[in-house]
């Protein structure tokens, strides 16, 4: 018995490793900004383990793309690489309290 016909699962969100991680990072920052009543996000500090083998330019591109979509254009990424580490830590974000909260769905998937 198979479920090939009826249960073929459809495409699921992110398409690449860096986009998948960027989505998770942006969802985390957006949630924190909303909880603080903040608006535009200006910069994000990240701590990335070298063993994640992340392509930083691509990660930056995807985060900036997601942020721009949600009303935070020109966001700056401050990335610290940790030798031999496996973490993908969102340390902090600089946000603008004088602008309205970013728009867009809260459910950006990773």
């Amino acid at each position, binding site marked *: 018995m198979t479920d090939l016909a009826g249960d073929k699962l459809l495409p699921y969100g992110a398409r690449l490793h860096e986009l998948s991680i960027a989505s998770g990072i942006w969802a985390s920052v957006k949630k924190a900004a909303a909880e603080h009543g903040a608006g535009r996000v200006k910069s994000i500090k990240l701590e990335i383990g070298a063993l994640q083998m992340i392509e930083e330019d691509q990660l930056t591109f995807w985060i900036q793309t997601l942020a721009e979509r949600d009303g935070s254009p020109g966001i700056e990424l401050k990335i610290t690489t940790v030798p031999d580490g496996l*973490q993908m830590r969102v340390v902090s974000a600089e946000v603008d309290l004088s602008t309205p909260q970013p728009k867009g769905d809260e459910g950006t998937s990773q």
Partner: protein
Amino acid sequence: MRLFETTEQGSVEIQIDEDIQARQEELAERNRQWLRERGIRAFDIAGSVGAGKTSLIAGMVERLSGRRAVGVIAGDVATTYDAERVTGRGARQVLQINTGGMCHLDAKVVHQALQKLQDGLDVLFVENVGNLICPSYFPLGVEARIVVVSASEGSHVIEKHPAMFRSADLVVLNKIDIAEAVSVDLARPVADLEAIRPGLPVVKANCLAGVGVGEVLHALKLV
């Protein structure tokens, strides 16, 4: 979470301190618990495109047929070819995930597939998307990861992809029958693996012909 520093007029730095990788571990743990509650032993079969993942799964399913209630989740960017290859070999249920371009499975998409499994399975093979890089960073919440690597991938394939082999619990060195034809000395990948993960079990196989498949099942304690 707290506000801690005003940086300029109207701007503040908010501390977030969230490890995105840890979130993947949480999602994997959710799967682990789901499988444990149902008594299902699940295995992630990873490796490059064409390494022989589907052949290994088909061989294992055939050998377990009649002895275990086996389910298979096949992950691919597109098509249902892999699921079709396993169908009819004795699995109770075969599901295909099409990721639509995503180059790996992750715990979230596997969790969606788990919800579609029939009751009563006791073994589950999850075939990851063919890739020796990205899957290594996405734990699925299964009991063990088997990485299949074929002789046709060259002598240095293990040395070139250390993260993947660090994440493995068992390595199947497949297509040993063609090693000489593609000028690969099998001693090299075995030595590289020993350097990266000393003591990691390695099974030399020709999955298409069924060679080594029984040894894999023994290593996984499925027979």
